[in-house]
């Protein structure tokens, strides 16, 4: 259901934020306003402000976050791994848009403070770390593996033409960072029942795979007012995707396939 206001325990305590000033002699100071939640404290979430000297900081938002964690405040929690946009761990909301901290340059954020929140409308484990259990369960629900009925050829793999491979090239590039699903208002209001753009893009990837033989079952599983049709083509997903993928188009294609098989 649409619920614009946060539950009481999730509301940010505006009086509680801490401020960490830049070291003296800092020349190019930029303030990072970061969402903090400590489950052990019993306190509500707060916004801490960290003033960094950008002359002493790497270019990406992830560099700034790690500088804070290493040099200013070791209690800051975040996920990160590859720092080059292929693992999807450091997905978060930066200046109002979901993206990967490792591929977003601080300079590209314009002037002013940088606001960093966890992925929207998700349960927060700690600080910028959200609980992605439901998101992963939705991915598993679309059965993201090759399903075949015919026996495999005895002497070779199940081959694809170059064109057939190209159809799954783009959707296979999804890194499951959850930027798209958590940018989608429809997913916010119905995350328990709507699969969301990431899972549906993955569903599309297997639907159009020339080797897969479970097309009917895959479409049956999606023909549901909530799982698929809560997509209202808002397009936040495609705007947010850090890999320049287009879940909205994939969902549109699934809707077309469902319409086409009616007659």
């Amino acid at each position, binding site marked *: 259901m649409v619920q614009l206001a*946060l539950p009481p325990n999730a509301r940010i305590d505006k009086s509680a934020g801490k401020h960490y000033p830049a070291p003296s002699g800092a020349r190019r100071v930029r303030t990072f306003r970061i969402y903090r939640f400590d489950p052990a404290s019993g306190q509500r979430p707060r916004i801490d402000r960290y003033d960094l000297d950008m002359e002493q900081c790497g270019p990406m938002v992830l560099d700034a976050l790690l500088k804070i964690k290493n040099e200013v405040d070791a209690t800051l929690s975040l996920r990160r791994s590859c720092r080059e946009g292929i693992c999807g761990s450091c997905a978060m909301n930066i200046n109002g*848009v979901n993206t990967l901290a490792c591929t977003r340059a601080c300079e590209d954020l314009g002037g002013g403070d940088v606001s960093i929140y966890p992925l929207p409308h998700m349960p927060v484990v700690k600080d910028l770390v959200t609980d992605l259990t439901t998101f992963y369960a939705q991915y598993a629900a679309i059965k993201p593996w090759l399903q075949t009925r015919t026996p495999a050829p005895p002497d070779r793999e199940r081959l694809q033409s170059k064109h057939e491979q190209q159809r799954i090239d783009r959707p296979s590039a999804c890194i499951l960072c959850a930027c798209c699903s958590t940018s989608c208002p429809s997913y916010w209001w119905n995350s328990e029942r709507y699969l969301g753009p990431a899972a549906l893009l993955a569903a599309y990837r297997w639907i159009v795979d020339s080797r897969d033989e479970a097309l009917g079952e895959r479409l049956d599983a999606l023909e549901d007012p909530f799982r698929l049709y809560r997509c209202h083509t808002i397009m936040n997903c495609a705007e947010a995707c850090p890999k320049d993928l287009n879940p909205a188009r994939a969902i549109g294609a699934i809707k077309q396939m469902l319409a086409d098989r009616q007659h």
Partner: protein
Amino acid sequence: MAERPLSPHFTVYRWAYTMTLSILHRVSGLALSLALVAFVLWLVAISLGPASYDAFSPALQSWPVRILIALAIIALLYHFANGLRHLAWDMGWGFELRQARASAAVVLIVVAIASIACLVFLFRHGAGA
């Protein structure tokens, strides 16, 4: 251990054309449903004969009602124009981001021009009545 708080969403996500056009589509659709009720009441007034129509029509000339009619016209134009955008998507066209941005701009510009034209025409011809 405290219950996990829900991360901020609506209040922190940067407002963009995507959500704006989507929510306007819903709002205009809802407004048109309500306008349809008023329209049916007007038809009922006509069907009951001149006396009831004469009793009903002065209300249409009042400024609050005129403003509501103007809003209904804008809602109709918007819902129609953006509905065409949705139809195009349903046929698989216009999903590229540059296309979606361009179609959004076209919808808003067309609706603005058509609304002004409609309202100028209506109130110029309606004001003397």
